[in-house]
């Protein structure tokens, strides 16, 4: 049985968007609508707010392996991760000229300092450092975050965006709820029948959605879900179910994801392109929408290594995900020199061990080109799970 050609076409379109490093889709959207486009770095910004002001939120996740880094390397020492180099390279090459602003969420010191560099290198562009609160009391951290979002909205309005209105924000929240619901459905389908949703394919769909308005990404997710659910050409294989942790900022090359799958792993949960899942459930689209947006971050965001876990046991969230996904192993797959992921890893390892789930670890850079060692490591890991796990 062959694959539904509509599915093939959808994935091919997503793949071509993902591979295009010129932001052509964003330029087209701007030409069509006359709206502003604002980029954001990993992991999360409330895209609803941008959308409500008529802005296209554009997820930026560094460069692909085929991007030659010349200028970017001149800005960073060898012991700094790769994402800021490609971001600078793309900026200096003029690719990000399509963007009217850039938002730098507070996730690590490298992204933080990059925001200052951006202010100086691109003085005409709006630069906003989104200082995500680490205090989760609504009256304290929530109030601070709200003021920050309001000041962002006001700065965007000064740049020509629509002034923020409560009605528009409620509408945007409803649209993104549907978008996120479909992504959750896709992740649930992959947990149930991972052969139907190969991660290398899901990944390009998620990345493509970073470059399109929610009005286009939602139908794409819906169609992908429908087609892949119905597809009978994909048959189960004897693969190990693994959870891939640590790849929430700088992304692995697509070839690395394919390598893991070819090495005998079904990826049943991951941290890739996490903006689509950072808020875990629907945000109520009634009442004070700004308050809803703030509360979602404070109370319903994933337990990312970039967030302070004030209550509960560190690693509890990983244990929950392991149980939910019935993962048989964890691949700690972090970018080299990624402070949040690598500092968190010993605690995450303990969580995996508490859950009785075996693990292995390796690192990558977004421009890694050789995967033989990782293939052997992941293959041996998958084999050991199949041979020696309790089942």
């Amino acid at each position, binding site marked *: 049985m062959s694959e539904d050609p509509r599915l093939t076409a959808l994935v091919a379109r997503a793949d071509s968007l993902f591979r295009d490093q010129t932001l052509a889709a964003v330029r087209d959207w701007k030409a069509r609508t006359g709206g502003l486009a604002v980029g954001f770095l990993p992991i999360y910004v409330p895209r609803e707010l941008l959308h409500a002001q008529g802005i296209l939120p554009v997820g930026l996740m560094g460069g692909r392996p085929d991007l030659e880094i010349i200028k970017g390397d001149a800005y960073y020492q060898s012991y700094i991760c790769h994402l800021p180099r490609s971001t600078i390279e793309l900026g200096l090459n003029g690719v990000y000229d399509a963007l009217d602003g850039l938002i730098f969420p507070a996730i690590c010191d490298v992204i933080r300092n990059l925001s200052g560099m951006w202010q*100086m290198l691109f003085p005409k562009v709006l630069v906003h450092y989104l200082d995500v609160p680490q205090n989760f009391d609504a009256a304290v951290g929530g109030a*601070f975050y709200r003021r920050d979002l309001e000041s962002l909205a006001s700065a965007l309005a000064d740049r020509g965006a629509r002034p923020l209105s409560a009605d528009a924000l409620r509408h945007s929240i409803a649209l993104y709820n549907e978008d996120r619901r479909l992504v959750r459905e896709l992740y649930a389908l992959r947990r149930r029948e991972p052969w139907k949703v190969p991660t290398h394919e899901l990944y390009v769909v998620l990345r493509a959605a970073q470059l399109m308005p929610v009005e286009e990404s939602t139908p794409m997710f819906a169609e992908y879900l429908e087609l892949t659910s119905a597809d009978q050409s994909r048959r189960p294989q004897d693969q190990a179910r693994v959870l891939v942790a640590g790849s929430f900022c700088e992304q692995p090359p697509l070839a690395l994801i394919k390598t893991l799958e070819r090495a005998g792993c079904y990826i049943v949960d991951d941290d890739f392109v996490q903006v689509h899942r950072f808020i875990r459930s629907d945000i109520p689209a009634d009442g004070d929408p700004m308050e809803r947006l703030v509360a979602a971050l404070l109370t319903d965001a994933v337990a990312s*290594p970039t967030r302070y876990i004030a209550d509960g046991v560190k690693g509890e969230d990983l244990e929950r995900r392991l149980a939910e996904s019935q993962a048989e192993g964890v691949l700690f797959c972090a970018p080299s020199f990624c*402070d949040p992921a690598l*500092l968190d890893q010993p605690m995450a390892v303990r969580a995996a061990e508490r859950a009785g789930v075996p693990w292995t670890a390796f690192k990558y850079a977004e421009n890694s080109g050789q995967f033989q060692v990782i293939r052997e490591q992941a293959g041996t890991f998958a084999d050991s799970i199949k041979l020696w796990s309790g089942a």
Partner: protein
Amino acid sequence: MSPAPTTAPPAQKDNSQVRQKQMIARHFDRLAAAPETGAKCAYTFVPGNLTELLLAFDMLPVLPEINALQSAMRGKTAEYIAAAEKLGHSEDVCTYVKSDIGMMKSGNVGPTGQRLPNPDLLLLSYTGCFTFMKWFELLREEYHCPVAMLHVPYQADGRITDAMRTYVVDQLKTAVIPKLEEVTGRKYDEDRLRAHLAKSAQAENDLVWVLQSAKNVPSPIDAYFGAVYYVGPIFSAFRGTTDAVDYYRELRAEIAGRIREGKGPVTPDGDMERERFRIVVEGPPNWTNFRQFWKMLADEGAVAVASTYSKVGGVYDLGFRHDPDRPLETLAEYCLGCYTNLSLPTRIDLLTRYLSEYRADGFLINSVKSCNSFSAGQLHILREVEARSGRPGAFIESDLVDPRYFSAANIKNRLESYFQMLEQKRMGAAS
């Protein structure tokens, strides 16, 4: 080629040095005795430390960063870092963290050879460094003690806003102070806090005077290597104490004496006799080879006349003083204003200003692998400061406390070339 030695035999310790040593010894004695005396101790960080508030609750501060750097100076960190890496801590991450964890796993013996008490509280002042947060998450798993988190927003746009100040004050009121009350069983006493803050301001005045004495030619101090000792008390357990007030008064008098006598700074080999180069330094020192590194500069007759590292625990020379009349607001502003919490453009402005105000010949960036807060963007800083000031910069790489990353030959070569270039430039300008 290096010039003939410009230094004299080692001098006797100044009174202020003796006093500081005694203060530190007494502090570590109190810490060692804490399990018997019942004194409560809080582990906390240098940038954004709330020492006056801890003192108001009679808590004893322990600074893991300082323990790590002192372990490095005692040659212990190679073994501590190896112990942490064996436990699964990545080779890519901050070596302060790994040294601290390795030290804890090796018995938690502090710099004076006495065992440090376990923390009653981890006071996580999340100021200017993301790693702090992860560090105390790791320690929380080891010590199973309460954590008080104080998230200090970043000055991304180069200023402190009302929203930032309010956010920090609100956290002090709703999270930090209640936790201190809970751990110590004492009520918050604002008058005690005010009294400590008043002493802080006194000591800060004298510290600023000392640091700015480097505007003299020759400079009577080394504002990088030497300043490490000068900032020690105020960056650690003593800000807000009478000890600190007395120490800085004494230090100021000694430096005033050096100026009167036309003396240069103290170096590892004694007083420097001839100041050849005045430089500004950005970035923390390397601690494993601190003396060797200092000597590389001193042997060239190079004096650090200003540094950014001496501002990680507070940029007092820009005018900030703790204000007893606004106790919580002043703590908030202090935390917000520490050097690594400043935006990159502000850091560039500050360095450029130092070059001019301190009549420096150039600047040196010591880029440390461990510290992205400092290091990410330093190559940009190098270019910008050179362009704005017209003065050349040198760039070297090392680490905080991992001896594997200190390549003495490479650093020495680079420094020698740099000083030769400064000399050539000077000769060119004179001809």
